[in-house]
Structure formats: structure tokens, C-alpha cells
């Protein structure tokens, strides 16, 4: 298949299937001094077969979002509201624990950050994958299980000799690929990869990234890739969503985001990527982030935005579609929306 990320999605939104729909998701962390708002009512969609990247600085809420989709938020965090609809049918947040356990991994799988610790140290590698398979599809025969797991290894480029090994016998990159193999074992509707390459060195990063791409193309898997390395993202994802302080400020096809970022924050992010081609001073963003317990009314970015206006301090800018598939939440573009603000149901009205 050709480079999918070179082609702008030209299909009308209504004809593309949605793998995941997040509506108004809110996650808070309780502290004795009040709730910290980690995720502030975000909404977005992941289409079938696409790889969407979720970027932002540390603490912006991207991992929390991922954990919330998987419903792995632990105290003192809690999901306060919203919906996460998988495959157009199941709202993960409305399931009870039994149903949730049944649905997990089959519909949504996780490739964790830092596979160093994510594999059970006392269990052989194949057993950990077999665990998931047996749980959701019933106990498999030894032969069938072995065949299947070896095939999975093959798909992610792992040699079959590691079948009986323990996690500590594998290198970092291999461990990560075991996690990938585990994630695709049940062919889930959605795969969430939480900074899968952060803990690896550059060469291994490349291998893992390539593996992810392979999977996407061969299985048609829908993926959310979380990270803060925009450079790496650019090579992998179809669309990119930028988060700041718990809100999504821009969603765009990755090329457009890089060449023509609209939101001031995205612009700063792109500008701050050091270039090996030109010589330019390192751009340091001014200002401090606000106290997440007491966000100021209005736009989340107002305290650091170089183009802030009065309106920004009062009204929260909604996420609006300015160009096909390009959404921005910024008052600078008020009135420029080609369509009215995206309604929660995802259907658009002509303006």
C-alpha cells in the first residue's frame, strides 16, 4: 500500500466508519485541596483503519485520556463524565465490571509505555499472550495456541526461539514487540499505544515504529498513538490531535498540522522542533501553565498564548471545523468555520 499519510482523506465524514467516538470525556484527580481537572470534556473520533496521534506536553492529559478509554484510571483519579463508544455500539463507560472485562482486549487493547515492567517477570512470554487468548476465546489446544502465537511473533518480527523465554531474557525492543504481538492477538477494534517508543534507543525505535505501521497496514487496525515526539509521529500517523491542559486544541491531518498549524499552541510546538537544516534560535515558550485545580474561565491556553484576546479570557472556544477534517479550538478563527461547530453526533450541517 502507498504512503497513506500522504493522502488527505477526501471522503465525506459521513461515509467513513468510526472505530471510537469520544464524547465530552472528563477525568478528575482528587486532592485534599480540590479536584485537579486532568481531562476537560474532550471529544474526538478515530476512524476505522487510521492511526491518530495524540500529542502534548507532559501532564496535558493524553495518557489519562488513554487510560480513561481503557477504564484503567485508578484512585485518586476518577472519570466524571462522558462517553467512549467503540465500534459504534458499546459505550465502555457504561459497562459493569463483568461486561468490561469481557470486552477488554477484544475491542480495545493497550501497548503500554515502557514494556520493561509490563510483562510479568515470572511468566514465560508465550503464556502471557495465551492468557489473553484463552480468556476471551476459551482454552485453546496446545498446538493451536502455539501456532497462533508463533504467527503473531512472525508478524511483529520476533524470532520463534523466544517462545519459552522469560521477559528478562529479552531486550527492550523485543519486549515491546511482544507487547505489540499481545495487543493484536485478538484483532481488536482499537489499539492504544502509549508512548511505545519512549524508553527505547533510536535504532530500536525505528524498528518498533515500523512494526506498528506494518500492523496498521496488514490488519487495518485503528490506533491511537500517544507521544510527545512530533517528529516520530509525523512519520507514522494519519491525523494528529494536539492536547493542552486537558483539552484538545487542534485536530488535523498530520501534513497540514506540520505545514500549516492553526492553533497558536500547535504553532509554538512545531516551531520548537529543532531543525537540522536551518539555524534558528531555540524558541522557549513564555509563561506558566495555570493551576489545574482552578482553571481560568475561557480558553485553557490564555496564559501562554502570544495572540491572546479579551474573548479568550471569557469564553471557551469550541472545537470547530475550519477546513475539511481540520478542527481548531481558537477564537482567532471565530466566524471562519466552514461548518457550524461539530455537533456531538458527528453529522454536519451546511452553514
Amino acid at each position, binding site marked *: 500500500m502507498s504512503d497513506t499519510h500522504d493522502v488527505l482523506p477526501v471522503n465525506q465524514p459521513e461515509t467513513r466508519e468510526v472505530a471510537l467516538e469520544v464524547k465530552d470525556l472528563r477525568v478528575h484527580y482528587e486532592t485534599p485541596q480540590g479536584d485537579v481537572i486532568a481531562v476537560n470534556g474532550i471529544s474526538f473520533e478515530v476512524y476505522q483503519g487510521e492511526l491518530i496521534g495524540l500529542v502534548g506536553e507532559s501532564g496535558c492529559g493524553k495518557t489519562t485520556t488513554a487510560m480513561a478509554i*481503557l477504564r*484503567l484510571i485508578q484512585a485518586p483519579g476518577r472519570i466524571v463524565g462522558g462517553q467512549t463508544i467503540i465500534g459504534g455500539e458499546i459505550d465502555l463507560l457504561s459497562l459493569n465490571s463483568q461486561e*468490561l*472485562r*469481557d*470486552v*477488554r*482486549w*477484544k475491542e480495545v*487493547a*493497550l501497548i*503500554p509505555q*515502557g514494556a*520493561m*515492567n*509490563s*510483562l*510479568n*517477570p*515470572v*511468566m514465560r512470554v508465550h503464556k502471557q499472550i495465551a*492468557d*489473553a487468548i484463552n*480468556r*476471551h476465546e476459551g482454552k485453546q489446544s496446545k498446538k493451536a495456541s502455539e501456532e497462533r502465537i508463533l504467527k503473531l511473533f512472525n508478524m511483529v518480527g520476533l524470532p520463534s526461539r523466544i517462545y*519459552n*523465554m*522469560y521477559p*528478562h*531474557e529479552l531486550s527492550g525492543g523485543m519486549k515491546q514487540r511482544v*507487547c505489540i504481538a*499481545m495487543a493484536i492477538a485478538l484483532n481488536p477494534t482499537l489499539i492504544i499505544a502509549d508512548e511505545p517508543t519512549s524508553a527505547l534507543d533510536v535504532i530500536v525505535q525505528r524498528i518498533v515504529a515500523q512494526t506498528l505501521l506494518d500492523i496498521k497496514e496488514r490488519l487495518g487496525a485503528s490506533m491511537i498513538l500517544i507521544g510527545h515526539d512530533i517528529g516520530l509521529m509525523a512519520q507514522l500517523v494519519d491525523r494528529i490531535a494536539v492536547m493542552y491542559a486537558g483539552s484538545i486544541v487542534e485536530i488535523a491531518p498530520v501534513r497540514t498540522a506540520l505545514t500549516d498549524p492553526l492553533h497558536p499552541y500547535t504553532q509554538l510546538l512545531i516551531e520548537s522542533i529543532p531543525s537540522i537544516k536551518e539555524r534558528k534560535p531555540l524558541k522557549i515558550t513564555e509563561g506558566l501553565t495555570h493551576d489545574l485545580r482552578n482553571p481560568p474561565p475561557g480558553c485553557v491556553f490564555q496564559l501562554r498564548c502570544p495572540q491572546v484576546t479579551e474573548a479568550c479570557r471569557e469564553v471557551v472556544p469550541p472545537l470547530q471545523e475550519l477546513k475539511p477534517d481540520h478542527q481548531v479550538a481558537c477564537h482567532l478563527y471565530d466566524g471562519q468555520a466552514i461548518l457550524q461547530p461539530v455537533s456531538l453526533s458527528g453529522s454536519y450541517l451546511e452553514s
Partner: protein
Amino acid sequence: MGGLSKAYILKRLGMFVLTVWLGTTIIFIIPRLTPGDPVDGMIGQMAVTGGNIENSEEMIEAWRQRFGLDKPIHIQYLRYMLNTVTFRNGYSLSAFPAEVDEMIQRSMPWTLGLLLVATAIAFVVGNAIGALLAWRGTPRPIRAILPLSLTFTSIPAFMLGILLVYVFSHILDWLPYAGGHDLAVSPGWDWDFAVSVIKHAILPAMAVVLVRMGFWALGMRGMMITTDGEDYMILAEAKGLRPWRVFWNYGVRNAILPQVTALGVALGSIAGGFVIVELIFAYPGIGYLLYQAILSSDYTVIQGIVFYVIFGVSLAILVLDLTYPLIDPRITYKRS
């Protein structure tokens, strides 16, 4: 694929030898720290505490021979070490001509039997309780056990033993006071004897079990909490595995490892505490033998027992260390 590397085995054997050697050496040195000829000093003390000294001539001679006091100190040391590690600890001072090794070996089975069984029960039950306590799914009533077992942990085993004897023997008269078995029943491999042994073993065992149980429970609970925060637990949850499986295969299997290590470290103090428990119950094991030896200033027996204890505990730890890699596959590769 956990296995034993040669380096690991050698290191453990080395520790074993070192420990036994150091312990035995300490026992050798102590009597010689008192001024004068150790034998004279001992006899003098025995006279002071009113010990019964029959056969004093033969005894002094045997003692001198044993110590080789006529020879230079390093020869004495070598002879001592040689004799001790081949389990030839000489004659008892007060029960002469009974041999120390014989006396000890007669009492050993009682101690070993009770101690091993009690420790095993305490370990298994204690860790089980601890694991359940840390798990969110455990019902309330079981949770209430924690403060209870914690209270027991604070009490030394022998004190609990005293309380148990008082309650169950003196007040309730359900279980016998003392001894290893009913004196009316003669030892043998029959049912009556077995029942008698068990009846006599219950209270001392309970003393040890109740006390150690809380210790393991507390530790296991702490370990389960730590394990709960590990990344692989999160992934296990994400896979939608059933709670029991996560608890057991991902939680307990990992949390138990440091507990097993702790068991090795604790063996020394368990043995020590047990000695006194035996005393309380006049249980015919090594501990009681020690008590009697102290009463009669029977130094050879005292030293002999101490050696056996050091040897036994070190051996147990060695065995534990060598079997540990079977449960923890990482061990062979650790370079610590």
C-alpha cells in the same frame, strides 16, 4: 528456564561454611575470654551454683582432653573445630558419661518435627491472609483478622505459650500441660502414641503459629500493595483477565518471592524463640535440653546445642537458597 549457575551455588555454599565457621569460632573464643584455665573456671562456677559434681576426676580429665588444654592454642582450636564439625562434642558435664551428641540427637526429632510443621503452617496461612487482605475483592469479615493477627505478632511466642497453657491446660483442662507425650503411653509407631504426641504438640505449635502468622500476613500485605502498583498488573487488568487469575498469577506469584527470602532471614530468630517455647512446655526438644544444661552449668552440652542450632539453621537457609531459583526465574542472571 530458571536454573542454578555454578557461581550461585558456590556463593551460597561459601556463606554456609562461613557462617558455621564463624559461629563455631565464637563459641570457641568465649570461654577463653574468661581469665584462667577454662576448665578450672567452669568447675569453680559449678561449685558456686551448687552443681552436683560426681566423678569429678574423670570429668576434669575428659574435659581437658576434649579441650586439649595441654597443647598450644592453635592446636586446641584445630582439634576443637575438627571434633565439632564431625559431631563429636564430648561428654556432658552433669550427666557424665552421657555423650553430648547422643543427648542432642535424641531431642532433635521432637524439635524438628514441631518447628518445621509450625513454621510451614504459619508461613502458608500467614501469607494467604496477607494476600487476601491486600486484595480489593476480599469481604469485610476476613479483613477484620488483620488487627487481630497483628496483635499476636507483637507478643513473643513464649509469652503466648504461657497464656495458652494457662487457659487451655489450667483453666479448661482440654490439653496437657507439658511434655512431648503422655508418660503413660510408651513410644512406638502406634495410634495411641501418635494421638498423644499430637495432643501435646498442639499448644506449643499454636504459640509459634499464631505469633509468626501475623508477621507474614503483614509482610505479604505490604508486598501485594507494592506489586499492585506494578505495570504488569495494569496490563493484566487491561487484558480483561479474571480477577482471581490476576490475583494469583500476577500478584501472589510475584509478591511471595521476597517473603521466601525473608523466611531465610527469619529462621534464626524463629529457632531462638522456639527454644523458649519448649522450655515453657517442658517439650523434650533441644530447647528444653538447653534449659536443663544451663541450670546444671553443663557447658559442654550448652556449646554442643548451640553448634547444632547454628549448623541446622545455616543448613536450612542453604537449602532455601538453593531452591529459590526454582520459583524466581530471574535469579541465575542476577549479578548481585
